[in-house]
């Protein structure tokens, strides 16, 4: 017989006939040759499920399914789902349900989720929750909308069985709801994210596009002695091989400190395995990969600095000219010495947290091309487009205006898409070749190269009076910031200022050493340092409560920050401190669920080796940059003659729901329905600078900017009407897309036309400056708002094996005002799941600077099977400066989860977890020792 040279199959009902290509997987064939880019490649190693398609009605992973094997078979992709319902104009019930229930966040995993769910419903039209967990076990969602995904599938299944419309979810609206604000609003881009039409960077192709790759050093520490790229340059199909000496502009980049070499030059220092020594552009990915193998680099190996404690020792070699100390961060309030002397009880303990990875499902991708005007365009899903522009321009040695960053949809960020990854490299290659160049990281490269969550060592010492009053807190933190600064100083500052918890304590001393090491850089990651310090301090709070013989809830209530409290950094809290209410709400729910003593261990009936108990933790997290950094955002709102509005800003949608929030704000101000407002984000030519999408700041800062722009435009329209109709401006109303003047109703679109005819553009730009903050060390407001959260976790521990399962989470969050309750629910549930992963599954392992967990198969993130029942309680203590009273919530929802879980483990079996992630073997060992002893 002959080999398979032809593939004849049916794709979405259409006959397809293609020549077979050696080595080609089905996902590539669908994406590259049939243009069906709805099928996503998240890991390319059969782990994440994003590439799921149906073959003869069975779900398979197309990233590892040879395309030739599709011969003679029937393939269904996300693009073919609509026609299944018999009506191409209507969405399939699954698509509709995912949208209605808010199951769509960043959207990257959604085609895989929907296809896997569709296959399930084919087999089981009436699935149980267990069926869903079983079927979706390996279809990962990093936004972790698992509870909503489950509800959406159930709703779709019901609609399919009954033929009735998909039932919407029951969502509690905001107690502070207005016309649009505080009510349920669908995510505008959800439809395209469920049909496969949504375009992420890797879905783009340009004529003549080349594929770029970076040659990584692969050694953690050394000096580049020799570099030979001649063979790679001579390989047919290679268009350019660039090294450090080919960089026309600045050789270093970095968000705060430019200490990160774009490429390491000969004689220069390699500081981590992901450092680049050369970059390649070639006609195909395969040729680019081959070229990398032909590059020869020689290094003088140097001793590896593995951890921050080692890095701080005087005898350790300095990685940077200024030494290994990135920053010594200090918090001082009162006298801790006096405080400890006064205290009746003092507790002290050291905690460790590991490096963790964002594992956003969309790997980094950027495409650079020189346009007809000789400007550089970079297509990228970035959390800080203007910073990208600046850094790309500096590397090229060009003025910033000659670079344009064009934001694409972002398949998850979580802080991991703030630093430069391929942007500069692709621009350098595009400039050198004058052809578009795409650089797509594979999962391996993504795991090895991009900045992580800081590993920390945190010592907490707390003193309390017998009645529970905290009188003194001393903390010492070591943060592993890895090879380069990234946002390390900021992250560890936040870890430090939050390290004695959301409590009012008279005497506080905190010292943090943010140290360079030879590990991958550490930077922003949802929680921004507070995830680590909250684990430490909230564990210690429970230890202290036990020592005091005091109820842990009482201890927290007694010391909780309130309006009028003074924080560690000397800030007087003037409004929006809902912590006590969060504690009380969780407490009431716990008593409702588990009776008077939820923290007592309970054996599971019939299984005496399984023990359950609840645990609790509280936290706070700043909204906005703070610390004296100017925090501003620009937005522009324009009214079109068709009566629709557009709001423009460079803030990023990373799945958190900013597009929806901005739409709602502008709709509210104009009295129109949400769908009349279009949102354009992240284009440095077309959208004003919204600043970084970080620090839970965009709803507050860009929300205020959008509101300001909307109000300004409304006022301009009002004065135009007031003059024309000679009525006082306050008598003019905007209702349902109409301006009401003197009993007359004028459509908004007509106003746009009228304004244009007066020679004025119907648009308004607003630059919002958040309230000024003070640097750490100076008293006053270090932050303009804080979010508060309290969570309780019920765990089940297996006394024999040490295995831990989270059964239930109750989360109360003070959000100021719930602008979009549906989006908020996704943030809470997703945040809880990320906190659960931080506690139980995630461990980025390094061995002498080398990455052990360099594949998704080795770095596990929570799956739907880990999902507990999550009850979200929204607390709304409005903050005066926030839009409609809102403050940031992206991070606070994730922070208390881990210590709530580890405290619950202690309550269940008496084993204190002081090092993450929870190690079941250590629990089993401790229980065995206890039994033996």
């Amino acid at each position, binding site marked *: 017989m002959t080999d*398979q040279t032809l593939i004849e199959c049916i794709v979405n009902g259409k006959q397809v006939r293609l020549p077979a290509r050696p*080595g080609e997987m089905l996902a590539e064939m669908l994406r590259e040759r049939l243009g069906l880019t709805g099928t996503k490649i998240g890991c390319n*190693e059969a782990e994440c499920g994003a590439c799921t398609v149906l073959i003869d009605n069975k779900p398979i992973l197309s990233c590892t399914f040879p395309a030739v094997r599709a011969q003679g078979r029937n393939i269904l992709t996300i693009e073919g789902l609509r026609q299944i319902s018999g009506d191409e104009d209507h969405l399939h019930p699954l698509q509709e349900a995912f949208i209605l229930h808010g199951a769509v966040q960043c959207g990257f995993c959604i085609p895989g989720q929907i296809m896997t769910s569709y296959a399930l419903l084919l087999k089981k039209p009436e699935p149980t929750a267990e069926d869903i967990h079983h079927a979706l076990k390996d*279809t990962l969602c990093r936004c972790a909308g698992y509870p909503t995904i489950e509800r959406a599938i159930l709703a779709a299944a019901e609609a399919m069985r009954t033929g009735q419309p998909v039932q919407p979810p029951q969502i509690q609206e905001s107690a502070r709801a207005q016309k649009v604000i505080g009510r349920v609003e669908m995510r505008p881009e959800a439809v395209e994210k469920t049909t496969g039409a949504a375009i992420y960077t890797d879905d783009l192709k340009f004529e003549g596009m080349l594929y770029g790759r970076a040659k990584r050093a692969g050694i953690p520490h050394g000096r580049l002695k020799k570099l030979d790229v001649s063979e790679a340059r001579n390989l047919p199909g290679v268009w350019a091989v660039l090294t450090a000496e080919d960089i026309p502009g600045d050789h270093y980049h970095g968000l705060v400190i430019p200490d990160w070499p774009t490429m390491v030059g000969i004689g220069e220092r390699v500081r981590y395995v992901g450092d680049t020594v050369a970059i390649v552009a070639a006609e195909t990915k395969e040729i680019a990969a081959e070229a990398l193998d032909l590059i020869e680099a020689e290094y003088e190996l140097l001793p590896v600095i593995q951890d921050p404690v080692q890095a701080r020792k005087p005898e350790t070699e300095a990685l940077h000219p200024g030494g290994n100390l990135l920053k010594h961060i200090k918090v001082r309030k009162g006298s801790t010495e006096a405080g400890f002397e006064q205290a009746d009880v003092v507790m002290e303990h050291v905690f460790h947290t590991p490096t963790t990875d964002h594992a956003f499902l969309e790997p980094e991708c950027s495409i650079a091309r020189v346009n007809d005007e000789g400007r550089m365009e970079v297509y990228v899903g970035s959390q800080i487009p203007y910073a990208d522009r600046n850094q790309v321009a500096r590397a090229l040695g060009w003025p910033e205006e000659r670079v344009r960053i064009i934001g694409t949809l972002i398949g998850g960020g979580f802080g991991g898409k703030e630093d430069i990854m391929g942007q500069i490299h692709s621009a350098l290659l595009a400039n050198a070749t004058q052809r578009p160049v795409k650089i797509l990281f594979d999962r391996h490269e993504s795991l090895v190269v991009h900045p992580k969550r800081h590993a920390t060592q945190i010592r907490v010492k707390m003193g309390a009076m017998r009645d529970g009053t905290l009188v003194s807190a001393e903390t010492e933190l070591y943060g592993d910031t890895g090879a380069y600064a990234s946002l390390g100083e900021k992250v560890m500052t936040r870890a430090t200022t939050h390290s004695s918890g959301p409590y009012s304590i008279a005497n506080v001393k905190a010292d943090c050493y943010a140290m360079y090491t030879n590990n991958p850089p550490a930077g922003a990651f949802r929680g921004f340092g507070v995830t680590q310090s909250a684990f430490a301090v909230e564990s210690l709070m429970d230890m202290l409560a036990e020592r005091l013989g005091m109820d842990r809830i009482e201890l927290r209530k007694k010391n909780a920050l309130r309006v009028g409290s003074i924080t560690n950094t000397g800030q007087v809290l003037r409004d929006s401190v809902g912590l006590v209410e969060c504690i009380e709400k969780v407490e009431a729910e716990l008593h409702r669920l588990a009776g008077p003593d939820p923290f007592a261990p309970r054996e599971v009936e019939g299984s005496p080796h399984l023990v359950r108990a609840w645990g609790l933790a509280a936290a706070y997290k700043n909204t906005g940059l703070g610390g004296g950094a100017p925090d501003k955002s620009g937005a522009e709102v324009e009214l079109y003659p068709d009566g629709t509005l557009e709001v423009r800003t460079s803030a990023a949608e990373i799945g958190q729901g900013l597009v929806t929030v901005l739409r709602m704000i502008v709709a509210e101000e104009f009295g129109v329905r949400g769908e009349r407002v279009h949102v354009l984000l992240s284009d440095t030519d077309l959208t004003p600078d919204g600043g970084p999408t970080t620090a839970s700041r965009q709803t507050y800062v860009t929300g205020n900017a959008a509101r300001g722009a909307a109000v300004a435009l409304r006022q301009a329209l009002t004065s135009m009407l007031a003059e024309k109709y000679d009525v006082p401006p306050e008598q003019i109303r905007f209702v349902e897309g109409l301006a009401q003047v003197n009993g007359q109703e004028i459509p908004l679109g007509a106003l746009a036309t009228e304004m244009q005819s007066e020679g004025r553009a119907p648009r308004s730009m607003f630059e919002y400056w958040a309230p000024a903050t003070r640097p750490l060390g100076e008293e006053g407001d270090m932050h303009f708002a804080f979010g508060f959260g309290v969570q309780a976790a019920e765990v089940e521990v297996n006394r024999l094996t040490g295995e831990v399962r989270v059964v239930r989470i109750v989360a109360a969050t003070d959000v100021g005002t719930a602008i979009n309750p549906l989006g908020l629910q996704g943030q809470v549930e997703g945040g809880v799941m990320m906190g659960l992963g931080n506690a139980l599954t*995630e461990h980025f392992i390094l061995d002498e600077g080398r990455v052990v967990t360099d594949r998704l198969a080795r770095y596990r993130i929570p799956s739907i099977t880990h999902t507990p029942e999550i009850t979200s309680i929204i607390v709304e203590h409005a903050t005066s400066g926030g839009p409609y009273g809102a403050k940031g919530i992206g991070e606070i929802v994730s922070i208390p989860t881990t210590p709530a879980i580890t405290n619950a483990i202690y309550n269940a079996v008496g084993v204190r977890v002081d090092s993450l992630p929870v190690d079941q073997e250590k629990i089993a060992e401790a229980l065995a020792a206890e039994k033996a002893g």
Partner: protein
Amino acid sequence: MTIWNHYYLPSTLDEAIELLNQTPGSARVIAGGTDLLLDLQQGRHAPVDTLVDVNQVREMLVLEMRGTHLFIGASVPLNQITTSELVLEHAQALSEASGLIGGPQVRNTGTLGGNVAHALPAADGTISIMALNAEVEIASAQGLRRQALNTLFLGPGKSALDPHGEIISGFYLPVRKANQASGFSRIMRPQGVALPVINMAAWLERDGDRIQDIRIAVGPSGPIPQRITAAEDALRGRPYNEESLSDGLKAMLNSVKFRTSPQRATAEYRQKLAGVLLREVIQKVWQRAGGPVSHVV
């Protein structure tokens, strides 16, 4: 540089064997490919010239009763094994194990043949059919032959199969008789590679309150997947009670040298879990063996 050049989709065993013989040395058999393709993609396996895909080989897709045995073709997807009434009836250990391999999507392409051919000491599928006293059917130019499963393994990841001329075509599992049952369990950890910390399968025949006969396989318990005959001997003929189980466990721990896998489990933890699993698996199999035998054929 592609990971393969030629790809064949034979539909009979003869074709598949002929292809292997025609391209001596340069061809590799691919079943589901859920491991091999990743090895190729990630550079752990050198690119191959020719892949002979056995997923459509008719004889290897059969799942049926053959006299005193249940035959499971090596290319039958794991999901089909998991949901098969025949497998549930005669080889529940395999039903349970195959339902745990990979995820649902992987089980639609992954096969029992691939799971076994990889010769990993703790492959769930392999461990389950070790306890079921499986025989493996091997196809070559000389025709088909049957041999005991344990003769297939040489070392971790090394099988005795000639990769250039032999194909695992299927498995024969003895039919279940009255008072016999089997089961499989495993313990995982939530971090790191999704390999079991330890897994265990048992088959036993019950005679009233006595364990008439028993087979136990544990992974990873050595360089190759294996049965723990010392534990079987300690339990065979004994009443089902704590004392017997305790002797069985002692025998197991005396004969097996559990090893430490960095970042996964220490030998001591494995020893401890061996005791937990032994009780759990034997208990469930014991209870099953008390039940009636239905007649699924």
